């Protein structure tokens, strides 16, 4: 039965991709990209990749669709027909790369084989020893936050770089001070939505915190929690207007928090260096090694969650602030 569902999901992915190529209405393309993210997230669930499904759903289906829609609100909806000369050049190149890729798959270990090199070399140690060495059930979080913690540090820096980049490009310092702007939200007539949102937002924030601290035992962790936390603010900003949202979250505070998250992550590592161990070695935090790993992973996930949440808020507010110039509204 799982094979049928896999094939069904993959064929839906292919159909969505082909539809995206042909549709010229960019709003529809943004929505189909959201559907593409959703299907690939469900495919990840079928492939036992629960944490990745979590992240892909919240990032692929949620954040990237919202960002694309915010951009389309500024740049306009319809796309021009693509030029024949470009497609004639692109098709052979794409077919050539595709042929090389297919050629590459001929010697691959077959799908789901338990004896392929991937399953035998590095992975068994994580699965067998992580219970004793780190003591948390979710092996993905233990690899993410302890064995390969420096990769995750690089990742937090990538998100921080994106936040700095979007700020450097779109930051507007000429926005009127918050107090003076009357709150004229565009969604006044959607009273139903505002009531429901008012009920939902605390629940979403609570769910975000649950995901943050549940990362060791089930799917979840810093990234997913950060994105969920930020999506609560997006909902508030969309329904109550940007000025109300800017009253809630002050832009300089958000930037300081984003920097703070990265610094929390960095100091967790540097503390290990100060006492002679290597960077990001958690055995410094307490004499019992397993307990030390728990503490280390907790700090790491806190730093990651804080940075991801605040950078997502920075990116969304900077984009929406930019469209305020266009519409001069809310």
């Amino acid at each position, binding site marked *: 039965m799982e094979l049928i569902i896999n094939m069904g999901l993959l064929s839906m992915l292919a159909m969505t991709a082909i539809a995206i190529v042909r549709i010229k209405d960019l709003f529809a393309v943004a929505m189909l990209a959201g559907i593409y993210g959703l299907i690939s997230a469900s495919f990840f669930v079928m492939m036992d990749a629960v944490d990745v499904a979590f992240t892909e759903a919240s990032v692929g289906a949620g954040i990237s669709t919202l960002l694309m829609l915010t951009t389309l609100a500024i740049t306009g909806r319809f796309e021009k027909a693509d030029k024949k000369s470009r497609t004639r050049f692109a098709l052979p190149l*794409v077919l050539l790369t595709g042929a090389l*890729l297919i050629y590459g798959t001929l010697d*691959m270990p*077959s799908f789901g084989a338990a004896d392929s090199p991937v399953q035998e070399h590095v992975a068994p140690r994580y699965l067998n020893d992580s219970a004793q060495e780190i003591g948390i059930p979710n092996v993905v979080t233990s690899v993410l936050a302890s064995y390969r913690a420096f990769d995750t540090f690089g990742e937090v820096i990538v998100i921080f770089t994106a936040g700095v980049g979007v700020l450097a490009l779109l930051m507007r310092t000429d926005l009127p001070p918050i107090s003076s702007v009357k709150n004229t939200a565009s969604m006044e007539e959607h009273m139903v939505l505002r009531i429901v949102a008012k009920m939902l937002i605390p629940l979403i924030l609570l769910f975000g915190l649950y995901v943050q601290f549940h990362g060791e035992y*089930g799917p979840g962790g810093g990234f997913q929690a950060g994105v969920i936390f930020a999506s609560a603010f997006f909902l508030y900003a969309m329904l109550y207007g940007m000025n109300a949202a800017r009253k809630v979250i002050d832009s300089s505070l958000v930037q300081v928090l984003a920097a703070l998250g990265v610094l929390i992550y960095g100091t967790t590592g540097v503390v290990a260096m100060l006492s002679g161990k290597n960077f990001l070695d958690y055995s410094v935090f307490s004499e019992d090694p397993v307990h030390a790993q728990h503490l280390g992973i907790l700090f790491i996930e806190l730093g990651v969650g804080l940075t991801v949440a605040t950078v997502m808020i920075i990116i969304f507010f900077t984009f929406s602030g930019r469209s305020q110039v266009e519409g001069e509204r809310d």
Partner: protein
Amino acid sequence: MNFVGLFNYWIVMVLMMIGFYIVIAQGNLVKKLVGLTLFQTSVFIMYITMGKIEGATAPILVEGEALYSNPLPHVLILTAIVVGIATTALGLALVVRIKESYDSIEEDEINRKDQEC
């Protein structure tokens, strides 16, 4: 060369090429970024199908003996997804600035405006 074993990878390769085609062939800047997202997401799907073992469960340890899929590709893909969204966010910020200064997000119009001034 078993057909079913590699079928997953072939569909993933087709998805990659569709994404790659969009990036190269379509002129609209936002559409290129969508193509880039498709291309990267299908590379992620390739990574994840690598780690799956037939009849295994997710790498979250439960009591008693159980066969788990490989957790390492999941960690790599968590990083790659975040890299993907960071690139898309920066790309969209550039598109907004380009729209404000060129008043168009079609590649050939922008090139034409570049030649003029």
